């Protein structure tokens, strides 16, 4: 009653108009509807529960029954209901007369005639080719190659290192307009410096055969180069000159530099060094500058 009063007060505050309307729902209900409803509902519940019935304990023995039947083999004929004994096993469907007689020759032809054919004697010829190929290796090795191989490897390993491999380069620097800028000995000294740098790198590697000074592996390059005579060095540079002098299209590496790049390159060389170089190699045909 308290709740009802509260609701009425709340509704009147919100809308006096709505609060004044009768709470009687105006819809009608068939006579005796509520009297019959419980029985109707119980009837539906009963029909719902009796739609599918399973005997008590059916699922308890189900697995055992199935296994027993599997062990006994397929369903025995005598287990079929008696009505099946009165039914003929002849199929009631009809086939046009002579259907199978017409069908079978077609199938027989197809069976005896493969879709893909092979030229006569193909496999015989193929096998002889394979036999020859089996005995004959495609690549040939000189006689005694493998017998001598260990010896050759040992000789190569034991031989002293005389010179490191140098990547051949064009010894002439060309201007962008095609004119010669530098040629000759300037590159020879650059090559020597590169060789020295390579040797330094190789021998400063920790596994290299070098002296250990305080845990850091070092190499006295100057000392090593002192052992090389001027003649040997000149002979080596002459060899390199012949490689560097090869035409540009056969060279493995070319260097096309414009005027600005050359100036930039020479900018790193001190005036004293340039002066010394000019005194030693300052012939007119060795150097063409603008």
């Amino acid at each position, binding site marked *: 009653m308290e*709740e*009802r009063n509260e*609701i009425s007060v709340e*509704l009147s505050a*919100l*809308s006096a*108009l*709505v609060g004044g*309307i*009768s*709470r*009687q*729902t*105006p*819809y*009608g*209900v*068939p006579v005796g*509807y*509520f009297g019959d*409803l*419980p029985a*109707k*509902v*119980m009837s*539906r*519940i009963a029909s*719902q529960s009796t739609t599918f019935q399973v005997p008590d304990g059916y699922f308890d023995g189900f697995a055992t029954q199935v296994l027993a039947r599997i062990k006994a083999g397929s369903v025995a004929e005598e287990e079929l209901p008696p009505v099946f004994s009165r039914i003929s096993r002849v199929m009631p469907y009809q086939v046009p007369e002579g259907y199978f007689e017409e069908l079978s020759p077609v199938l027989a032809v197809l069976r005896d005639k493969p879709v893909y054919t092979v030229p006569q004697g193909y496999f015989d010829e193929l096998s002889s080719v394979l036999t020859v190929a089996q005995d004959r290796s495609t690549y040939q090795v000189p006689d005694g190659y493998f017998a001598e191989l260990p010896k050759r490897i040992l000789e190569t390993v034991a031989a002293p290192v005389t010179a490191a491999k140098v990547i051949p380069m064009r010894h002439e620097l060309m201007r962008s307009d095609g004119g010669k800028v530098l040629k000759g000995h300037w590159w020879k000294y650059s090559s020597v410096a590169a060789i020295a740098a390579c040797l330094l790198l190789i021998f400063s590697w920790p596994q290299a055969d070098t002296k250990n000074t305080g845990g850091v592996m070092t190499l006295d390059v100057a000392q090593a180069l002192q052992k090389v005579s001027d003649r040997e060095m000149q002979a080596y540079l002459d060899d390199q000159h012949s490689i560097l002098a090869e035409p540009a299209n056969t060279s493995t590496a070319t260097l096309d530099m414009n005027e600005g790049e050359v100036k930039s390159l020479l900018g790193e060389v001190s005036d004293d060094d340039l002066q010394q170089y000019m005194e030693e190699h300052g012939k007119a045909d060795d150097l063409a500058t603008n």
Partner: protein
Amino acid sequence: MGVTIQDTELLLQFRDPATREKAFTAIIKKYQEKLYWHIRRMVVEHEDANDVLQNVFIRVWNGLENFREDSQLYTWLYRIATNECLSFLEQQKRKSSVSLDETESGLSNKVIADKYFDPNKLEWKLQLAIQQLPEKQRVVFTLRYYDEMPYEEMSRVLDTSEGALKASYHHAVKKIEDYILNR
């Protein structure tokens, strides 16, 4: 308090297979009218209300054994009835492939088609106004206005906060007033 005890007793009887059907019949008799009118106000036609109500009781039968009694039976029944109503209306919408507005006008047409319909009576105007409301507001208004349900209990039925329910009710009353005044 007495009602709660009675529900408890009915539930005990329901759990005993020997008295199950008798207990359930008693539950139907006790709540059928309240639930029927709650459903009828939502679906309008008696035949639809009858179908929905029977489905509600069948659901209750199937679920009552697992009813945990952490809410009142009355609340639980209203919850099932409301959900069943909304499902029914959703099915009707899908069957007719019409928009929500058209469904609401369809419900208004059902009100007008009732053999007792009298356009001059405020009670009928109120029914037409209720059918204009969105579903949620319609449920809240009918539970509060006709079933006099406290917000706290309504909150358990509809799984909505009391504040939101109060706001819904407020909007519903204003819309109804507007409808009655301007039609």
